[in-house]
């Protein structure tokens, strides 16, 4: 099967700093693929090379089996990009934002109008068509950026942190729309800091750190493989607990006052610990992608 994105040993250097240090992955048609990683992991640098904004330092990049180094104009006609910053055109109305953007893709006036109306409707912005950008809420702005990225009816949608800064209602609304698009067969590449978002939308994902890919897989598979079935958190914890856990051969991490146990199989563990250390200090919850992320990339701040 031909791939939509094929990245081969891709590198991006800014002077001596290696922002992207030899990554490879492929994305298949109709797949939602996640690019995860802390700040500075190289996600945005990768995306910028993908859509031909940044020159590639080394390696190869194919979109729709076309080499982006030489076929960038044809490739860019087929992708939609939702950039991280809000860069809607404040000099234009909601509707004119879409119509103007359509012209950048050389859409005919009739096509542009039809697509604009369809997208305004799809993103529930049809009653805001004449509003200026400044009057829109954060959620509406994001939906308009998304609508704009679909104006050329793309075969690949690239989303760079599409829900950062949104309230939960807006975020869920964006997710629903993205799921609809995905079910419609659209290929999506997503970067995000929200593990819940990645777990919900992505079929497959990679976790990056310092310009390299640490792991690749399906979200549930990664959780099973790297964390286990459930998490037991104890806070505050007693030092004697550590020896107890070590003796049992259990994996745990500590940070500050908090102890996190990755529990793979021991069904009675939570009950046993609650009895010994007090039920109020112990919490049992299912393992999530966030646990995998923190386990692999560490807990220190990235600033």
């Amino acid at each position: 099967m031909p791939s939509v994105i094929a990245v081969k040993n891709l590198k991006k250097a800014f002077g001596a700093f290696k922002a992207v240090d030899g990554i490879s992955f492929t994305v298949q048609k109709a797949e939602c693929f996640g690019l995860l990683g802390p700040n500075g992991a190289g996600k945005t640098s990768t995306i910028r090379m993908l859509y031909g904004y940044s020159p590639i330092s080394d390696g190869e990049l194919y979109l729709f089996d076309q080499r982006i180094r030489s076929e960038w104009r044809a490739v860019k006609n087929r992708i939609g990009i939702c950039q991280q910053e809000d860069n809607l055109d404040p000099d234009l109305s909601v509707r004119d934002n879409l119509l103007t953007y359509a012209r950048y893709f050389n859409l005919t006036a009739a096509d542009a109008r039809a697509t604009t109306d369809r997208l305004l409707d799809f993103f529930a912005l049809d009653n805001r068509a004449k509003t200026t950008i400044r009057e829109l809420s954060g959620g509406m702005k994001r939906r308009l950026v998304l609508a704009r990225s679909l104006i050329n009816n793309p075969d690949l949608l690239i989303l760079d942190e599409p829900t950062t800064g949104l309230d939960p209602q807006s975020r869920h609304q964006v997710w629903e729309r993205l799921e609809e698009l995905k079910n419609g067969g659209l290929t999506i590449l997503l970067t995000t800091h929200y593990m819940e978002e990645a777990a919900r939308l992505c079929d497959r994902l990679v976790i990056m750190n310092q310009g390299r890919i640490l792991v690749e897989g399906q979200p549930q598979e990664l959780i099973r493989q790297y964390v286990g079935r459930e998490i037991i958190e104890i806070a505050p914890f007693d030092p004697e607990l550590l020896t107890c856990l070590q003796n049992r051969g259990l994996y745990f991490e500590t940070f500050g006052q908090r102890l996190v146990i990755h529990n793979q199989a021991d069904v009675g563990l939570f009950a046993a610990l609650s009895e010994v250390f007090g039920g109020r200090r112990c919490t049992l919850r299912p393992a999530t992608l966030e646990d995998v992320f923190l386990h692999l990339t560490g807990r220190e701040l990235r600033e």
Partner: protein
Amino acid sequence: MMRNFSISVRWMRVWQRNFSVYRHTWKISFLPPLLEPLFYLAAFGIGLSSLVSNFSYRGQEIAYLPFIAPALLAITIMYNAFFETSYASFVRMYYQKTFDAMLATPLTLEEVITGEIAWAATKSAIAAVLMQIVISLCGLIHYPEGLFILPLAALGGLAFAAIGMVFTGLVPNIETFNLPIFLFITPMFLFSGTFFPLQNLPTWAQWLAQIFPLTHLTILVRACALGRLELPLLGSLAYLVVFFLITYPLALRGMRKRLIK
């Protein structure tokens, strides 16, 4: 990728974007070129003319008002083009991220910048036409030679738009535009043979003024307005063309260096 110079007629789309915005605000944009000449002509015509007697310009006697009226046109061309690609383009690039959004489409940076420069030239040509109508109504422009002012406005607009964009590629922040305005635009405004003939300056200053593109634009517009088209004007025309042919690639290179990382 895209390191090579890559430009197609798609730059028209960027021009169109700016034109759409202009159409929404035309009522405000139309006012300065219509009112400004009236202010200037009133101030100089009523206030200053009585102090200035007729003098000799290019071997012919001329009154003060017909002398400065074409200079006002040349100055308007300069200001409209330069301010569009300096302050206005900087705002679109830096604060509004409009260029970033454009670069996520099949547009190239060269096309974005070319569209901006072409728009600035268009805007200054529109302003020049409006102003020319007012000045013509005062009987200060000779026709049909005066019709050549429109293509001159387009050429002058391109030249000043390109140099404005060169500065946009260089300035670290929007306040820094004060520097080229103070050191380049204002001296040009005053010493390009606009408000007094260059021959009143010391010889060295007359030579220095030949570097200013506004000197040449003023000579050309004034010749058209006075209906005195002569062969030596081709030198000034060539200067403006060469000035644009040098500053335009410089602007493209500077903006690429600034934006593409």
